[in-house]
Structures are given as structure tokens and as C-alpha cells.
């Protein structure tokens, strides 16, 4: 028998602290598979966020830097400017990227920093116990929107991929999901495209991955995936928002 699917080398053997059914685990694995397939494990430096993925430096078997909340794109900029030949990625949640780090991601895209950002959007703040995120849906209950997000008070969720796609320096922006095996395969393809563009030195790439938070949404892992399909995809449509091919047209 030959092995067709096994643990990617770019992941450590550590058991993660993520909740059962949390899609962080799938996304970590996809990034690691891509790094393996592109043969860049030894040339990669990752930047972990503040959020559930704060311990990502224990899970990716590559050089890692832990960044302050929201500042991963700035940290990645520092690393990439020193080592332009290395592969640099940030891995960020919705608080990290869309709230406190909104300026940093916009400017990294504006400068077309040759880095790749993996943006995990689960419409809530996981690590701190389920508070509202800039990506929380109108009407969605969280510990800081106990009556459901009220647009009169808290405004509307941010579609980061669409916003970043308007920036000239962003060369590839895609939104994907991981709610079933087919979407997982598409997500991996998008992540691979993003890293390939970085290797080719083309500029800033970002993949937004719609994800679940079963614990803070109050659902089983399976129910959470269905909630994502029913509620998040209508607000955050999947697809490639910016790609170099469009520029040629």
C-alpha cells in the first residue's frame, strides 16, 4: 500500500489546544501541506497572532515569531525586508486582522509587501471567550452583544477581502471556506496560489478562510459548519476578489 495522505512535515507533532472540531486545525494543515509541496519548509518564517492561534509557533515546524495583537503584518514586513528571499506568512484571526490590526494589513497590502496572510474569519473572538468581532453578523449573539449585534450601535461587519482587493498593491485576494471536503480542496488551492505568487515575488497575497467556532457559537462542530453555510456565506461570498489575471484583461 502507498500512503496518500499523512501528517505534513511542516507541522510539528504537538497536539493542538484548539477545541474539538475547530477549523484552525484544518487550516494549519493546509498551510503545512502547501509549504511541503512547494518545498519551502526550511525557507519559511511564520508570524503568529494574538488569538486562539497564538500558540501556532508550537504547531508549524518552521521559524516563527509571535507578534503583538494586530501587528503581524508589520512584524512580517520587518522580517521580509531583512530576508527578501525567504517565505514569510502571517496567520491571523478576525480581531487581530480586522480590528486592532486594520491599519497594518491595509498598509502591508498598500506596500505590496511580498508576504502571504492567512486570515481566519469565524465572526467572533474565540480566545477571549466569544466577544463580538468586526466580522460578527448583524443579529449575532456574542458576549459583548448579548441582544444580538445591533447595527445602530455597532455598525456592520467588515468584508476585509473586498476592501483589500481595492488596493493596487494586493495581487491575490481570495475568500474560501472549509465546511466540506470539496471546499477544503478549493481552500488549499487558493492558499497554494498565494504562496506561489509570493515565491514568484509578485507582491501581497491574502486568503480569507471562513471558519467555525463551535464553542463560542454554541453549536456542535457539525452544526457549526452548517451555520457557516447558512449565515456567513451570504454575508461573505466565496471567490477570488483580486488576481493578477484580471489586470491583464
Amino acid at each position, binding site marked *: 500500500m502507498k500512503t496518500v495522505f499523512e501528517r505534513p512535515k511542516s507541522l510539528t507533532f504537538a497536539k493542538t489546544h484548539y477545541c474539538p472540531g475547530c477549523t484552525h486545525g484544518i487550516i494549519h494543515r493546509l498551510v503545512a501541506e502547501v509549504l511541503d509541496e512547494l518545498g519551502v*519548509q*526550511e525557507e519559511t*518564517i511564520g508570524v503568529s497572532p494574538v488569538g486562539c492561534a497564538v500558540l501556532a509557533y508550537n504547531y508549524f*515546524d518552521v521559524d*516563527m*515569531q509571535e507578534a503583538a495583537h494586530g*501587528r503581524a503584518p*508589520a512584524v512580517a514586513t*520587518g522580517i521580509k525586508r531583512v530576508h527578501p528571499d525567504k517565505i514569510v506568512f502571517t496567520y491571523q484571526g478576525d480581531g487581530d486582522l480586522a480590528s486592532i490590526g486594520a491599519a497594518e494589513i491595509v498598509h502591508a497590502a498598500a506596500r505590496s509587501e511580498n508576504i502571504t496572510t492567512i486570515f481566519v474569519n469565524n465572526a467572533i473572538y474565540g480566545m477571549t471567550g466569544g466577544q463580538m468581532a468586526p466580522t460578527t453578523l448583524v443579529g449575532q449573539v456574542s458576549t459583548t452583544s448579548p441582544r444580538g449585534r445591533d447595527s445602530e450601535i455597532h455598525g456592520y461587519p467588515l468584508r476585509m477581502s473586498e476592501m483589500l482587493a481595492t488596493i493596487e498593491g494586493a495581487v491575490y485576494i481570495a475568500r474560501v471556506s472549509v465546511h466540506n471536503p470539496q471546499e477544503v480542496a478549493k481552500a488549499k488551492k487558493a492558499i497554494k496560489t498565494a504562496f506561489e505568487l509570493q515565491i514568484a515575488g509578485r507582491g501581497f497575497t491574502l486568503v480569507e478562510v471562513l471558519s467555525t467556532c463551535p464553542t463560542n457559537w454554541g453549536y456542535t462542530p457539525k452544526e457549526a459548519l452548517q451555520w457557516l453555510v447558512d449565515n456567513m456565506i451570504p454575508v461573505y461570498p466565496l471567490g477570488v476578489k483580486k488576481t493578477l489575471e484580471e489586470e491583464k484583461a
Partner: protein
Amino acid sequence: MAKVLMKGNEALSEAAIRAGCRYFFGYPITPQNEIPQYLSKRLPEVGGVFLQAESEIAAINMVYGAAGAGARVMTSSSSPGISLKQEGITYMVGAELPCVIVNMQRGGPGLGSIQPAQSDYFQAVKGGGHGDYKLLVLAPATIQETVDLMGKAFDLADEYRNPVMILGDGILGQMMEGVELPAEETPVTLAGKPWATTGAKGRKPNVINSLFLDPIELEKHNHHLQRKYDCMAKEVLWENYQTDDAEIVLVGYGSSARIAKAAVDLARAQGIKAGLFRPITLFPFPKEALQEACKQAKHVLTVEMSMGQLVEDVRYNLEFKVPVHFYGRCGGMVPTTRAVLEEIIRWVKSGKEETHEDSL
């Protein structure tokens, strides 16, 4: 070697380059804008990288990334911008990363003024950011001294794996003086940094991190950091000026020390035995040297451009054995030599032995 007339901000920038600094991340703020401006021109000339960040917060985090990747890197700002950098600075301390941070102080608090001040002493020396930590703080008083200390600042940062701050002020940044720069071709051998994130080829991955969720580990880490600060004690620098027989010793750093020195000269001309003790490292504080300089003094007068920050450390380090008085201007106002002289005369001619309580 011939001297060049240079503005403080530009001289220190050139000195940084000659010390091997090849990366600068910063943001415009008065009165230090000549630093990013000069480096934006010079760094590409030497194959370095200049990047104007979107904010002082982004800049310090870029410094973190670059330092973690093994680079010799600096940032600069002025008081409000240094406040913004505080979180990033503590992260660099916790992750044991080297860098040089230049603060050209201006009036505060808040938006304050663009004129010089020395009201960030507490921020620089006592913390500024959260957690138990210290920065090695250098306080040059002349442009030549700033230039001479730049290379040392980077070397100390690398040696201790800790950020080093150059605490200047708007006067030092904006004034022009003749300086001798280190020779252009001075080869700088930069120590290897096996802990840096350079791509894990042929070794286990490195992690740059300040998170220690296990309190046992974090306590150990804090003790480790403290041992570094204890070792730093040997890096103390200071200047004694006519303190041997001084009955009143002035204490000041940076620009106010120069004003105090001029007042000391005027006082001596009037027969008053005045002297100046000038700490050059503010952390580690030259406590023994201060006590030695003041051992025969009846009065100590601290002169600073603040509401009284250095003076607390002077009282503390003299262990309250000598009355310590304070003269300061703030908000961008600069003490005049005449006013300092009047203070000297006032305390010397006050007659009785002042007790410590009298001077509070």
C-alpha cells in the same frame, strides 16, 4: 580628522550607518524628522532598507520582526510616538531582541509642544511599558557624544539582547555642532545570531516569543531578565566636572547638563565651589559615582527640563544623605544659565545646613 558641521539628528543617523545599522523603520514627528529623512537618502546608498511605517506602532513592530530576523535595526521618534511604541518595546524585551530606539524628547503630556523637554525620564528609565523590565538608557549631551555612543548602543543591544534607548531632546536633535564621524570604512563585524529566524535550514526552528503561559516559566524568565540588568551595572558612564571640592553639586543630563555646566563656570568665577555630576547612562544609574561626587557637598541641585523626574533618582541614589534641590522648566521652556546660577547662589547663601525635609 576634519570636523563636519552637522545637525544632531543627521549626525546620529550617519553614525548609526557607520555602526552597521542597515534597517530603519519610523514615522515622522517633530523634532526628529531629519532622522527618517536622512536615512531615507543614505540607507539605500549602503544597501540598507528605509521604510516609513504607517504609525509608530507599526514601526516598532517592524523593528521587532527585523531584529528577530537577525538585523541591526533602529527606530526613532519623539515623546508621543515613544508612548505609542511602549507595547512593542516590552515585547522586544520579553523576546530578548536587540535594537536602538532614539527619543528626541519634546514637551508633554499629550500632544504637548514641539519644543525640547526632558519629561520622559520616568518613561525611559522606570518602564513606560508594562511588566518588569529595563532599557539600557544613554543620555548624550553633545552631538559628538551622540555620535560616539551610537556604535556602543548597537553593540550593547546585541550583547545584552535588549533594546537600548538614546534619550535626547529637541535641542540636541536640532542644533548643529562640529563632529568627527567614525571613519567611513570602519569594518563592522556583526556577531552571529544563532537564535534569529533566518529559515530553519539544517537546524531546529527558532521561535521569537515573549509569551510564557506557565507562571513557573515566566517567573524564571523574569529572573533571567533581571540578571541581565544586574550585569548591565558595569556599563555605567558619567562625567564629573569640578566636583572634587564642590560644596554644591549640580546634577543633570543631556542639554540641561550643558546649561548647568555653564552656570557652574559662572559660579566658580564668583568664588562659589560648584560642580556638575552628569550621568551618561541613566540606566544603569551611576550610583557609586554620584555618591563619590557628592560626598563633600552640602547641597545638590538637580536641573532638568521637567517637573522633577531625575531628581527622584538623585535623592534615591544619594540615600537621602544630602539635601537635594530641584530646578526645572517644562513645556518646552529651557532653563537659562542665569536662572540656574541664581539657584546655586540661593542654596549656597541660604546659610544653615538644610535638612532633606527642607528641600522637599
